[in-house]
């Protein structure tokens, strides 16, 4: 993936967030967690790019745009506990996937025990 395409996609993500606010006008506490996870992922992207030594400044601009939208989202509330719970759990699981992906940079996956059936 080229750096320019990556930047374009990140900016697309950032610009789409206000549309969510327009469509429902409400954002949940679960979504705050979701966007927190998203930002962690974007931060990881930047770290990866930096390790390659390219285009960090462009990506930092995209991250700044995301952070500005995230700040706005934090001001909103939402009340459906079931939906909130689903969003929160899926967000946590995506966060777990991201963390596992990051762990593979240092921990050999062959050393991990297969977890039991939940």
């Amino acid at each position, binding site marked *: 993936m080229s750096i320019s395409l990556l930047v374009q996609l990140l900016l697309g993500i950032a610009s789409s967030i206000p549309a969510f606010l327009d469509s429902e006008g409400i954002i949940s506490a679960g979504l705050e967690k979701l966007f927190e996870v*998203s930002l962690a992922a974007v931060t990881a992207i930047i770290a990866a790019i930096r390790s390659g030594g390219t285009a960090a400044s462009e990506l930092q601009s995209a991250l700044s745009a995301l952070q500005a939208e995230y700040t706005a989202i934090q001001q909103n509330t939402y009340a459906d*506990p079931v939906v909130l719970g689903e969003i929160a759990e899926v967000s946590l699981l995506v966060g777990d996937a991201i963390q596992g992906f990051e762990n593979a940079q240092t921990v050999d996956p062959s050393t991990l025990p297969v977890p039991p059936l939940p």
Partner: protein
Amino acid sequence: MRNRIFCITACALILMCGCKTASAPLPPWAPNAQVATAGSVISAANNVVVGYEQDQKDCAANAALTKCPGVSSPAIHKAVQDIQQALVVAQPQFNSWETAVRQDPAATEPANLAAAISTIQAVLAQFPSLTGK
């Protein structure tokens, strides 16, 4: 709306995976990039199952937590089970393949491993649509 929002996280994850493949240095344990990529997916899947287990324990201890309706969601539970079952197939094969590549860099990836990793990736990609079911 929920699906669109979760696409943000999915896109971020996909972007991150792409960047890792393209620009991150090879992990010290990995004999080559192909093994590193497969291992990264396995590590991600493993952490999802472990995390879900922990969430189940958390909710058994305190059902009032925000995440608990999601932990008890049949759709989310099935997705995690599918990942665990793919891991049961993938992980032993990955271990053997990693060892084989160290001895012979041309050792090919087992077909069952590739299929299991594809399954894991497909289930992870479903995450954005797991709410509201």
